[in-house]
């Protein structure tokens, strides 16, 4: 190893860091440490001038290790690596100390924050001293794509890719395509026909030669890595092995089961129906009570299972507008029926939606506001003199009155939940699930379609509740990524993999089953374990499990982490010594 010449750069992040951390003091102190050739601070390290500063220092001082203390490496690690690479240095001879998210933003005492920042910087220096050069590698992309879910999202994505001339495998758990949209009559707010739309889509998918659809199929296991995934399908009679380069998860939604919400009386009262059940009535043109009568009063309860800690804390995004759609549809067929909406906030936010809301109001729908968090309308069977089937009781917030609402049919705008097979799919595809049960995206704002696993994209309601246009857009966006990936044909792979030191490996076989990706195999000839670095994702579990220390996790080696620990504690060690001396 060459003698380390380290450059340390501490960022102010405007005032984000500098208001809580004495950046200058750290810079000075660090400058006196051994091996440190350059120690600087700058207002915005991530800006072009900031990066230029590093680049010119590398060239001028022949630096071979860089430490940047700034924000979270999850934000700017790549930026700096690129800059360092531009300066001709291997991008992995670099370490970031997170002194913003972990220090300046979360602490209030300048002295303590500065001390902590200092120890983080020293730890990064200690670690970077042991960093090694890692070389970039690429793999080819298999042009086929796997799409899980044959709903509108999956189909749109499939068509976008297939129409561009690439193979798509479309996996559907059901025996037909269409998903939830196929159970819907019309779309809001322009009231186009969901049925016509989905039928035409199904038609196109079925006629596209590039799309192979698998019905009644569930994915158990997916192996491989971006560009080269594979899965084995168990079909009725034969097994089928699929190889593909990318995949889109579009597993869709599951409507909440309203039976768990006792007040609402689903299952107990026959004329309480869910939104999807009501869609069936609309498709068939048969809006009747169970007893076959035309309803005089219809109550639509919004937010059933949504926006309530007991059920789902989130908003299901589409129910308000769907409810308004029902209101319009009922009005067209039953001009005299009273329509009541029990809602909590009218979320008419999309294009044309506010207008739709006002249009619905004009058609004599009564909007009654309830407290969806604490006071769900209570439904009971009506008495003989009530002249209706069901009476709903609730506190109306806009008037401040306790009211009762007569109803013959009650429609529940049930919330959307992630489909139950999300967990299984997530496990197979190696993506995370967030607290609400939906797939976790790579970044909630700037990358809502990618996941933390390369080559795996999510689209539609499996990411979060959304309406058809938004699902379709997301499907398109995912398709864009995949088209890019296919047309470029190559992808760079993970560099921070595990590696086996064959001179030490004792052939104990401990590691082999530890790897979740089966990246480790045993070389019978050499009698050592071997890591397939294309499959390896660099979690480092094997490295910890290896009793001999033969496996090391690149960029996170024992040596690197142990020196990081030493570095971390160096400041407090010195400090406590100082304290003791003072006490003496």
């Amino acid at each position, binding site marked *: 190893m060459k003698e380390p010449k380290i450059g340390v750069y501490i960022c102010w992040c405007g005032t984000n860091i500098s208001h809580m951390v004495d950046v200058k003091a750290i810079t000075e102190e660090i400058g006196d440490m051994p091996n440190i050739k350059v120690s600087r601070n700058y207002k915005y390290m991530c800006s072009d001038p900031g990066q230029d500063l590093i680049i010119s220092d590398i060239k001028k001082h022949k630096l071979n290790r860089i430490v940047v203390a700034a924000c979270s490496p999850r934000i700017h690690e790549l930026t700096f690596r690129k800059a360092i690479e531009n300066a001709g240095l291997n991008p992995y001879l670099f370490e970031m100390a997170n002194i913003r998210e972990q220090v300046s933003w979360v602490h209030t005492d300048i002295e303590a924050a500065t001390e902590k920042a200092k120890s983080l910087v020293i730890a990064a220096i200690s670690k970077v001293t042991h960093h090694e050069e890692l070389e970039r590698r690429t793999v080819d992309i298999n042009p086929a794509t796997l799409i899980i879910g044959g709903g509108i999202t999956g189909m749109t994505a499939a068509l976008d890719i297939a129409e561009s001339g690439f193979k798509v495998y479309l996996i559907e758990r059901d025996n037909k395509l269409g998903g939830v949209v196929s159970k819907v009559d019309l779309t809001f707010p322009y009231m186009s026909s969901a049925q016509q739309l989905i039928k035409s889509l199904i038609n196109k998918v079925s006629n596209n030669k590039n799309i192979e659809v698998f019905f009644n199929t569930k994915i158990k296991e997916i192996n491989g890595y971006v560009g080269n995934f594979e899965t084995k399908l168990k079909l009725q009679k034969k097994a089928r092995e699929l190889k593909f380069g990318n995949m889109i998860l579009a597993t869709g939604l599951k409507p909440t089961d309203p039976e768990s919400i006792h007040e609402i009386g689903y299952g107990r009262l026959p004329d309480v129906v869910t939104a999807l059940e009501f869609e069936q009535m609309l498709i068939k043109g048969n809006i009747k009570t169970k007893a076959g009568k035309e309803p005089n009063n219809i109550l639509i309860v919004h937010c059933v299972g949504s926006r309530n800690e007991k059920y789902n804390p989130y908003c299901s995004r589409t129910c308000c507008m769907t409810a308004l759609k029902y209101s319009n549809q009922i009005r067209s067929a039953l001009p005299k029926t009273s329509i009541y909406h029990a809602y909590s906030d009218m979320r008419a936010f999309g294009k044309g939606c506010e207008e739709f809301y006002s249009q619905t109001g004009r058609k004599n729908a009564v909007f009654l506001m309830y407290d969806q968090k604490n006071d769900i309308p209570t439904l009971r069977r009506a008495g003989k003199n009530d002249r209706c089937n069901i009476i709903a009781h609730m506190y109306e917030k806009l008037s401040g009155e*306790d009211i009762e609402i007569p109803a013959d049919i009650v429609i529940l705008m049930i919330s959307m939940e992630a489909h139950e097979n999300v967990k299984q799919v997530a496990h197979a595809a190696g993506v995370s699930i967030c607290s609400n049960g939906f797939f976790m995206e790579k970044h909630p704002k700037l990358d809502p379609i990618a996941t933390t696993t390369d080559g795996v994209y999510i689209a539609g309601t499996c990411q979060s509740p959304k309406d058809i246009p938004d699902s379709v857009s997301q499907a398109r966006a995912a398709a864009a990524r995949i088209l890019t990936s296919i047309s470029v044909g190559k992808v760079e792979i993970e560099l921070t993999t595990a590696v086996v030191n064959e001179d030490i490996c004792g052939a104990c076989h401990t590691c082999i089953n530890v790897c979740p990706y089966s990246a480790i195999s045993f070389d019978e000839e050499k009698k050592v374990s071997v890591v397939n670095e294309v499959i390896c994702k660099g979690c480092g579990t094997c490295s910890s499990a290896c009793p001999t220390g033969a496996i090391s996790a690149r960029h996170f080696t024992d040596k690197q982490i142990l020196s990081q620990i030493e570095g971390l504690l160096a400041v407090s060690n010195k400090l406590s010594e100082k304290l003791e001396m003072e006490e003496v």
Partner: protein
Amino acid sequence: MSYRVNSEFKSDLKKFGIAEQWNECFHCGNCTAVCPLTENGFLFPRQGIRVMQMGLKEKLATYVDPWLCYYCGECSETCPREANPAELMMTLRRYLTSVYDWTGLSKKIYTSKWWEFGSIIIIALLIIVGFLIYLPLKSGADAMVNQSGSVMINSLVEGISAGQFVRIIEIGDWTMAIIVAALLISNILNMFYKVILSDNAVKVPFGTYFTEFWRLIYNFATQAKFSKCDDRNYWVGHLLLMTGYSIMFALVVIALPLFQIEEIVPWYNWQRLLGYYATFGILFFLIQVTIGRIKKQDTKLKFSHPSDWLFIIMLALTTITGILVHIFRLNGMVEATYYLYIAHLAVLVPMIVIEVPFSKWSHLAYRPFAVYFSRLKKAAVKKIEYQRELAPAI
């Protein structure tokens, strides 16, 4: 107690109004906030819209809020949904008038043109026919003109003396006044029952009835609340009308023998000055309103219910006939004076009989009473929101 919502109620109410945009309201609260007259406990117009949308009929009957509104129109002007809350308040006033009216005539008059015009025409016809048969014009016009050349108005009728004629008209006046007052008072009692007694939330301390009574008189006389509205011109006009009308009413009904005399007193005499003031007051406001209602620019005059026009027309006709009677008298035109006098009565009487207890004019009583009742409600400690002072949050 929980109220049962009823979306059908809206269609009942529709007949009392012109605009129908109230369903557009999404309850942002802008109208209430912008209203200079609303206060805690009486949050209008939004709550009125809410009660209307929900069809809470019983609740609505306990409301005095619509009477507290003087229709400045600011709420409608700033309403983001153009839901026209001010016009709803107007509509609710019409509706409440019919609610207070126990005879049920009010509802018929408001909601049916046949009833409205029919009742007026019948009363007018009765008066015309009655005059022509029982109080016909004397022959010999010259006898009915005095030295100064003006018509002696009380001596036009065949067979009775001037004194007798005044007496007959006075009796007629009083009869009319008593009937109208009886109807109005019974309606006010009905209002009192509905607003105060049947509202379980309100228990008025007895003393309050007296301590707050001055408000009734004060508001009747000044429409002080009205002056809080931004457009003070309108309040001035309205005050002119109100005083003018009251003076005229006093002169014609209470002081008829003093007012309707044979001799023409000089123009600076009190009767004539009062008369001119009243006529001016009425005409001034009438013209203001008529132009406004035709132009439809001012929010409060944009929407005219048939009853609004009828009221204007009747009042205008009364005034014009009155002026003409005066002019003809001065010029000694006997026949013209007589027939116009009949015409004057044929307009005036139905106007008072129909408009005061059953229609638009009833507000002369309901408004001050509403102010009075609202104070009573506010004094009733049971419901906290009436007690709340207008105060910042927390």
